[in-house]
């Protein structure tokens, strides 16, 4: 009665791993760290890019800002809204009040009124409208000393009571946003009554957004800057591609480490020519020997790669996992919940898995294949202990 040769090979491979426990543990550990270091920046970059794109797809088709020689200037809300609505193809235009101020040692975004957030909030959450002196903070904002928050702009410094939190569901869009009463926001940002920071414009057909630019420029009596949704997405993607590029540069040492692991594995396997010769003398074929090495390599490489990929996945997408963001992007607060694009993440995981596993398996199998094709006596004599 016979049993599957592969069952015995698995047992033998496990035995072989246990024969060299320290070496196997070191190899496994090195592969694990390598997988995590390679996968985490790629996953984080992809998650940020995907999350930003998802948010921007909910943003207005066009954003119009008024320019002046010093940069940008508030625009008169009623007049600007009317001018935009007069352009054929524009379906809606709404004035927004927002800007950046200091909260302690960090810069945060403040939004006045509720219109800017209304697309992101559920009906229940939208009921959290702050009154003067009150604020609703995004998930990434920590109130200083409990439920109070001090905001400072070049013009004014105000203290606010935090009456609620924006729900985590708003994600990256409002992660470090503070929602204020219209009046407080105007004071902080020095925007007079009747004026707004910019104009959010929606169009009848998304494809027209790029072509409406000249008409909008004509419609306003002052110089304007128009940013379309596709431009904003492009800017973000370029930014994340740059980060991804930097992450790749950071990954160069990882590739060097991979090369060293591959070289060490080749050297160690080549050093086992004596064993290969002995096995061949006892009736093992080239196929058996390669099979044994394959089982051995897979027994270490596959679980380690899987654990490494799961670890990096967890570090990026697990709520509350902070240190990848702190390490790679300098986040010092609770990170936003990132959007997972399953297909994209799978591609990254497969890419990294392949990048690490293929050279490792090749490094294991190549010397075995080369040695196994030789005469056993030569291998025993050449590698005799």
């Amino acid at each position: 009665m016979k049993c599957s040769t592969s069952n015995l090979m698995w047992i033998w491979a496990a035995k072989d791993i246990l024969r060299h426990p320290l070496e196997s543990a070191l190899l496994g550990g090195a592969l694990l760290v390598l997988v995590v270091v390679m996968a985490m920046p790629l996953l984080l970059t992809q998650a940020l890019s995907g999350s930003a794109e998802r948010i921007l797809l909910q943003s207005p088709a066009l954003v119009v800002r008024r320019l002046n020689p010093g940069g940008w200037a508030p625009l008169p809300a009623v007049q600007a809204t009317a001018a935009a609505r007069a352009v054929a193809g524009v379906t809606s235009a709404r004035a927004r009040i927002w800007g950046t101020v200091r909260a302690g040692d960090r810069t945060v975004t403040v939004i006045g009124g509720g219109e800017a957030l209304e697309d992101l909030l559920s009906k229940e959450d939208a009921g959290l409208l702050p009154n003067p002196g009150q604020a609703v903070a995004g998930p990434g904002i920590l109130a200083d000393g409990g439920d109070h928050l001090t905001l400072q702009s070049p013009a004014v410094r105000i203290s606010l009571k935090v009456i609620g939190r924006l729900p985590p569901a708003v994600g990256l869009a409002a992660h470090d946003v503070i929602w204020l009463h219209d009046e407080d926001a105007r004071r902080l940002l020095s925007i007079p009554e009747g004026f707004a920071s910019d104009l959010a414009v929606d169009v009848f057909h998304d494809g027209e957004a790029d072509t409406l630019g000249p008409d909008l420029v004509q419609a306003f009596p002052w110089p304007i800057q128009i940013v379309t949704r596709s431009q904003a997405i492009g800017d973000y993607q370029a930014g994340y591609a740059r980060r991804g590029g930097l992450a790749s540069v950071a990954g160069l040492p990882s590739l060097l480490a991979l090369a060293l692991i591959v070289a060490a594995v080749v050297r160690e396997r080549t050093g086992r020519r004596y064993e290969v010769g002995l096995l061949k003398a006892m009736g093992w074929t080239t196929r058996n020997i390669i099979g044994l090495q394959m089982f051995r390599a897979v027994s270490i490489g596959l679980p380690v790669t899987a654990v490494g990929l799961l670890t990096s996945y967890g570090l990026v997408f697990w709520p509350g996992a902070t240190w990848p963001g702190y390490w790679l992007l300098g986040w010092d607060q609770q990170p936003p919940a990132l959007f997972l694009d399953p297909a994209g993440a799978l591609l990254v995981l497969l890419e990294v898995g392949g990048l690490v596993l293929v050279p490792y398996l090749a490094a294991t199998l190549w010397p075995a294949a080369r040695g196994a094709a030789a005469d056993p006596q030569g291998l025993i004599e050449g590698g005799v202990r």
Partner: protein
Amino acid sequence: MTEAMHCHGLGFDRPMARGLKRSVLKRIDATFHPGRIALITGATGAGKSTLLHLLGGMMRPTVGDVRVGQEAVSRWVTAHRDMWRRNVGIVFQQPHLFDDMTVLENVAVPMIPRGVRLAELRMRALDIISRLGLSHLTCDRAGALSLGECQRVSIARALVCEPSVLLCDEPTAYQDPESIALVLKALADARDRQAVVVVTGHDPRLTQTRFGDDHYMLKRGRLSEL
């Protein structure tokens, strides 16, 4: 039915430094029959081990060939010789064991690629270990054994698959008289099941015990029947 093993004009030159060669075996013609033990004696360096390695397909001859029946096995490609070697049990002059494995594991190694059931593998290994008087060492690491014990483990490993060709290089070296009796009994059992058994040695105890059915002398690379 096991076929006889023939050497036809078998010669082997060992490469030396500076491209020189030393002729180890010179045009050997011999036939080793199944069901008989061939004992080859000769001085150290006469080429006994080299002859066994050639018979076992462990390397290629420089001239001539080794035939089993009508097949010139020594001319086969490596992969085919690897498969054929499953019919061969070989005992090296040095035991060549896996020192960090137990006696049981060392003896089981040849059975792994043959797909023997685990329970049967264990049973066969324990049986041959017991026949060679090594039962008390079954779970000991090979690296901790004496040279004589290692040699007997190596004989057990060669015999465990009941090969049709058994090649033993100095199997009685390092053995005490009691162990020699066990070794010779194991080799005789192999002969009795019609294996081709070729044993080399210059141990006088082999010739004194009238061991072997056919006696050969290897001298300066030439084989002569006694």
